[in-house]
């Protein structure tokens, strides 16, 4: 008993926070390592742009997947649903000559329906999520092929649809002095505005804490934390300013990450998800409608699949039967690398996003180095196994 309780003690949420910081540091270390190995190529402005563009769907899916993982389950159907949504949108535009907004609404509606379908079986019929989503993985991959009749459907004539994953926010390029490079002022301004917002929020937070006469962390700690966030964010916007400006997809990503973070950390619904994952029986006996929570989680996953499906088909300019293959595994890996627990109840959205970015940087760095695709898979798998093993073993050690 004593040992067990010790373990639980170490498995505290504080531990999860530390783990998250650890992964953020790992992300930076991996980034710097590949930058050196590629003689600075990874640091080129265009590669920052690519990093966002290429990994956007995994980040979107990881947000939805995190909720599933928090309940102690996974969703294996994600890749197939992404392909299915893309195929429906494509067919609506190409075969039925509908405008892009109809295709987008159709895609989102399909995602919502799939979410309800999964939620019905998992939450109301209480069929294990693993089995329901495994079945749906087959069902929706099959339906994708049915809808596309085996073809690749594209390109899309409607510019709006193509813009989603390929276009940028308006830019205003300026040349400073005698420099040969141009900077997009809008990117720079967004970066600086974000920095100011972060500072204002932190000051406000601290003053509220003082008003409640709670313990306030030392100012130096806050300053370091904020400084790191601001520097990283502004390196990003600076690089993007030198490239093509802010991608539209970045705006969508930030919006999704903020919403999911807010739901999990600041709402009753989010608290209910953590409680359900931590101890479903206790959550139920505490008056939480666990069926509703479970339904909501898979509904949200359906919507995120739809968003990712639209983004992917927009980026590819076409819907293909093989689209989204093994995306579910990338999303699940991102959550686990980002500190989520396989038994549920532990994990954060920011962690999942960091996990997704680690995978993304690995992918890009290895591609730049010319590592063959087959070895890339080997290395990614090793990183997942290594990251989680190191984390669990160190936890067990300190637990004993």
């Amino acid at each position, binding site marked *: 008993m004593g040992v067990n309780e010790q373990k639980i003690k170490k498995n505290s949420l504080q531990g999860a926070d530390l783990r998250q910081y650890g992964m953020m540091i790992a992300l930076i270390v991996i980034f710097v390592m590949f930058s050196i190995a590629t003689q600075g190529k990874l640091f080129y402005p265009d590669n920052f742009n690519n990093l966002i563009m290429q990994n956007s769907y995994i980040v979107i899916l990881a947000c939805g997947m995190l909720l599933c993982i928090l309940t102690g389950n996974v969703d294996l159907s994600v890749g197939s649903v992404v392909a299915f949504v893309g195929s429906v949108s494509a067919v609506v535009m190409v075969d039925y000559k509908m405008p892009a907004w109809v295709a987008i609404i159709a895609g989102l509606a399909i995602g919502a329906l799939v979410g309800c379908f999964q939620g019905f079986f998992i939450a109301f019929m209480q069929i294990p999520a693993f089995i329901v989503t495994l079945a749906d993985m087959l069902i929706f991959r099959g339906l994708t092929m049915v809808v596309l009749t085996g073809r690749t459907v594209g390109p899309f004539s409607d510019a709006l649809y193509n813009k989603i994953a390929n276009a940028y926010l308006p830019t205003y390029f300026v040349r400073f002095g005698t420099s040969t490079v141009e900077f997009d002022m809008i990117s720079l301004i967004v970066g600086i505005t974000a920095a100011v917002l972060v500072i204002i929020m932190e000051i406000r937070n601290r003053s509220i804490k003082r008003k409640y006469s709670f313990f306030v962390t030392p100012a130096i700690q806050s300053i370091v934390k904020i400084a790191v966030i601001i520097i990283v964010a502004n390196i990003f916007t600076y690089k993007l300013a030198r490239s093509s400006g802010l991608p539209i997809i970045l705006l969508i990503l930030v919006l999704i990450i903020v919403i999911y973070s807010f739901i999990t950390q600041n709402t009753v619904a989010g608290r209910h998800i953590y409680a359900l994952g931590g101890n479903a029986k206790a959550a139920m*006996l505490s008056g*939480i409608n666990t069926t509703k929570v479970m339904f909501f989680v898979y509904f949200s996953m359906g919507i995120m699949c739809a968003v990712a499906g639209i983004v992917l088909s927009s980026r590819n300019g076409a819907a293909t039967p093989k689209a989204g293959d093994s995306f579910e595994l990338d999303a699940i890996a991102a959550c686990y690398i980002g500190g989520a627990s396989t038994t549920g*109840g532990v994990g954060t959205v920011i962690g999942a996003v960091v996990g997704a970015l680690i995978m993304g940087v690995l992918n890009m760095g290895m591609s730049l180095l010319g590592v063959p695709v087959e070895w890339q898979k080997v290395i990614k798998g090793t990183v997942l196994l290594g990251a989680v093993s190191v984390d669990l073993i160190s936890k067990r050690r300190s637990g004993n």
Partner: protein
Amino acid sequence: MSNVLLEMRHITKEFSGVKALDDVNLTVKEGEIHALCGENGAGKSTLMNVLSGVYPHGTYLGEILLDGKECKFHDIKASENQGIVIIHQELALSPYLSIAENVFIGNEQTKVSGVIDWNKTRAHSADLLKKVGLEHENVNTRIMDIGVGKQQLVEIAKALSKKVKLLILDEPTAALNDEESNKLLILLKKLQSEGITSIMISHKLNEISRIADVITVIRDGKLIETIQRDTEPVNEDRIIKGMVGRELVNRYPDRESNIGEVVFEVRNWNVYHPLEANRKVINNVNINVRKGEVVGLAGLMGAGRTELAMSIFGRSYGQKITGSIFKDGKEINVHTITHAVDNGLAYVTEDRKTYGLILIDDVKRNMTLSSLDSFSNKFGVLNKNEEILAAEEYKKKINVKANSIEQVVGSLSGGNQQKVVLAKWILTHPDVLIMDEPTRGIDVGAKYEIYCVINQLVAEGKSIIIISSEMPEILGMADRVYVVNEGEIAGELSKKDATQESIMKCIMSHQKEVK
């Protein structure tokens, strides 16, 4: 009946400083049926666990002699090799395996090493089933498809397969109906005639006085008396007196009772078992609680009190529930737990680790889990600062000993965990609190603090239903006692009439009635 088969001498067993057994002697003669009586927590099961090697040699003081030779068992296997087999209250059967497989589980009949000989397994188990009166069962039936009574008999067949000399049964009839119990008792008599000695732990005094040759009474870890049936008359009153005859010390804080109108009432409540649709668990129960009153539900383990409480609390137990619930004179709908909470009901579970707490989460978040609505705006956005404030307040108010409200509850002691569960429900501002074994497994100091919280709650005009297997606790805390037995209300006693003897008598006479 002559030779002494087993002798346990001066057995003392401590759990972190608390003596569960204190210098206990037990002598069992060959071929007798020896009954072990005592209240919950008296030390009966501990004594049997010492005997069967669950607590290995060296973790207790004293010696065990079997056939005159000293035994030092290091595990259960060692005691089984000597012919001592214990059948626990929770049966050790694998539900998806067949009867035959279960009979030889851990003791498989093999040809070459590791390869199961199915013919031998089936033939031998059929022989054993005949001995225990299950000759009409197919040995290939899955365990889950036969009733609890038959499962108990399979356990005995399993014991027989191990060449048992001394059979220990812990509450063998607790889960059985009368017919099944009767069968089991007859079987024990039959085994006795075949030379098998048994020790039986039981609460059911009528069964004990029917078949036991010798009765040993244990109280508070001490041997009280040993009654030989052939030399002195066996009398239930005498056993009861021996089991409970302790003076009550002042372990309960005083309370000025200020009892008002009936607040909460359950009428004609019937509940069926969640898995067995034909088994009635609660039968036509009527209870009520007044404002500012503590009502106790007394009864033996398995009497149906938890089932009653959980079925009332949002139908979280059972099926085919009928009956009505009234609050302040109006019938209320408590079909779901959410409804129950909204109607001012709270249920503090008996199993805080499994049903009460999110062990990996912190004190604060556990405390506010049931009352998140009062810490959020209409859009469901939490005000975490108000949450911290409330958690700090209750941590201080009911004295939760934790480093901070951010400490993970899994690392707290049992008593402090229980206080967190209590805080969780107090934060929902309930009118009626049902507390199921509120002080199980926690130390005396924490118990006293929880009693103080209970007194404070009733002083604020709340009503409390308390379920406890510790009779002194019921007598110390309750203004009124309902005696529950076999899913029925066996009697209602006022504080003045309620004593351990009167409650026991109530249960005994109800048991006879049911017969």
